[in-house]
């Protein structure tokens, strides 16, 4: 009697009401950074069976468990050799500051892995800091030039990105400072549009020829990766193999972005879990496992995620958002002169709070990561960022090898699908592994 009624509508919940009212007030779709926030089936829905009476484990952290990873063995005369199967995903200078690119390169080099350029070209800082640098060839071709092609260790042709397959990209004017504008040959402050289609080829038959051109330019030395956003993965992977890719990168829908429409981030593409299984199926179908390497990305966070990805058939993973979080994204504080300083006011000014921030698109990153602001970018000290990222990557690798040993593997690449079960029917169907406690794989005949 007389109390407030709080019966929330499932269809028009507070989130939906807020969305409609914001749309009505602005006449604009929302643009934001990072990746999908909705829950989709993911690696948390898988578990390892590990050793038992029928399997023989290795001894904890003591026994050797190899993590060496080689990418690009199909045609390139100089494949990429990495110490661990965990790489840093492509992120642009423009989205990130040059100091951040420096930090990524330092950390990746220290742990023996690769980092990747992004839209906008290669910065001198990241080339100098990165022992192994993958150079992206994107539809926009911003900053793309033959000198950097020759300076790179591998070339990655980007067809799409998990956060926005088919969507191209944006870099809002507040991040297009003089250096970014110069590198991208654009007017300063313009809202920059990254094309969704490559300018000089239009389909898989053309891609065959484009890849050969890049091989000719690099004298067949450097591996050529092809990166696709996860949509029709089975077909896309097969087409990329036919086109002559050495390495295929599949980016699931949980993958991040510096700025794109929320409607894209949340409603376009398929989950990384489903994408990975389709990619592996495609390679199996062509009998190309081990010949063409597979890198999976999109929401990889932990060593468990890495182990599950490898067990499902990936050769390596690429991490973007996890890397940024390791640097300090969404932290309460940033570090200056060894002291932690609160960034609370800056989060408040953005209308958000640590743990919830996805305001990369504004260029006003409170912790100095996704910014070109000359004051804010100083909040990320490259040496501090590199140390944190190195620790994160080491932790992931330790978790990965711990699981691999428990499964009786002397090499993390020996993890296999048979080591996995699923917690949910959806994950079992997507990953193609049995529901825990059963031998049932939904959708597979005879199970």
């Amino acid at each position, binding site marked *: 009697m007389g109390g407030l009624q709080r019966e929330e509508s499932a269809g028009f919940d507070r989130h939906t009401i807020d969305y409609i009212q914001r749309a009505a007030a602005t006449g604009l779709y929302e643009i934001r950074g990072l990746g999908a926030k909705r829950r989709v089936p993911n690696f948390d829905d898988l578990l390892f069976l590990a050793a038992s009476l029928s399997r023989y484990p290795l001894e904890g952290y003591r026994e050797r468990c190899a993590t060496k990873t080689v990418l690009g063995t199909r045609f390139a005369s100089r494949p990429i050799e990495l110490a661990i199967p965990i790489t840093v995903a492509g992120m642009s200078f423009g989205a990130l500051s040059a100091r951040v690119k420096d930090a990524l390169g330092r950390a990746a080099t220290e742990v023996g892995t690769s980092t990747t350029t992004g839209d906008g070209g290669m910065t001198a800082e990241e080339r100098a800091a990165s022992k192994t640098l993958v150079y992206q060839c994107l539809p926009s071709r911003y900053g793309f030039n033959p000198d950097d092609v020759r300076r790179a260790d591998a070339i990655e042709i980007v067809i799409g990105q998990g956060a926005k397959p088919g969507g191209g990209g944006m870099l809002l004017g507040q991040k297009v400072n003089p250096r970014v504008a110069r590198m991208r040959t654009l007017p300063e402050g313009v809202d920059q549009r990254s094309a969704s289609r490559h*300018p000089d080829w239009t389909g898989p038959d053309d891609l065959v020829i484009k890849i050969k051109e890049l091989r000719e330019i690099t004298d067949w030395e450097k591996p050529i990766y092809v990166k696709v956003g996860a949509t029709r993965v089975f077909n896309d992977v097969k087409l990329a193999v036919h086109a002559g890719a050495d390495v295929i990168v599949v980016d699931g829908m949980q993958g991040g972005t510096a700025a794109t429409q929320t409607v894209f981030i949340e409603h376009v593409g398929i989950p990384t879990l489903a994408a990975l299984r389709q990619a592996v199926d495609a390679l199996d179908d062509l009998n190309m496992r081990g010949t063409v390497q597979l890198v999976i990305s999109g929401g990889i966070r932990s060593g468990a995620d890495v182990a599950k990805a490898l067990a499902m058939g990936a050769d390596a993973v690429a991490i973007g958002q996890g890397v940024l979080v390791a640097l300090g994204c969404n932290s309460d504080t940033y570090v200056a002169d060894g002291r932690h300083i609160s960034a609370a006011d800056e989060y408040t000014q953005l209308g958000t709070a640590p743990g919830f921030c996805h305001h990369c698109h504004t260029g006003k990153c409170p912790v100095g990561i996704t910014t070109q602001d000359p004051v804010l970018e100083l909040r990320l000290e490259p040496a501090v960022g590199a140390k944190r990222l190195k620790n994160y990557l080491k932790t992931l690798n330790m978790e990965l090898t711990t699981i691999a040993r428990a499964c009786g593997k002397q090499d993390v690449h020996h993890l296999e699908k048979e080591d996995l079960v699923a917690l949910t029917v959806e994950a079992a169907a997507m990953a193609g592994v049995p529901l825990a406690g059963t031998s049932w794989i939904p959708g597979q005949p005879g199970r």
Partner: protein
Amino acid sequence: MANLRPVPAAREFDLAKDSLRDLNLFLHRHAVEQGVSQIRVRNPDGAHSIACGLNADLDVHIHGHVGYYAAGMNKHASVTIHGNAGPGAGENMMSGRVHIKGFASTAAGASAHGGLLVIDGDASLRCGISLKGADIVVGGSVGSFSAFMAQAGRIVICGDAEDALGDSLYEAVIYVRGKVRSLGADARFEPMTDTDRASLRGLLAAAGQPHEPGEFKRVASAKSLYHWNADANQEY
């Protein structure tokens, strides 16, 4: 004494017998090492990626038709194609000169940053797409969506242009002599200035085109798409 006169070092490749790989490797590495600057290529027979990725002051003449990406990513070199060119000729070139004596297929000069691309005949769809600072002179006409999202540089069209010329232009400027079937989004005709005429005269001379700057119209960006929310009807 005539025997003592320095003779420019030259080399000929016959792609009916020599491989594309051998040709490109020679152009990338051995030409400069061996002091060879004049290279003649016979029987290209539509091969792709001929003379791509050059990075030296070479003078390459290709006698016949070429496939995709001829002289792609060129830097410093002068490449003359005595025939027609397939898609992406001179794509992403940085400097130097690429001259197609015949016709060019789609995406000629795509994302080219510098240098001069001359096409004596017509160019197909998307000529100068994503242009980033190079100059392109087309003796004939161009297909639809030419200069799409072109960011910087100049495109001279001595003939006509098909649909959507200059769609989503940034700072690149187009000079067109003939008819334009339609302009693309955000492209507009603008008055020619003295600076335009002087600039155009230089380009026409460099390309060997006999026309007068006064015969051309200027197309550039209206810049209404420079900010994605410019037309939004915001409440606050």
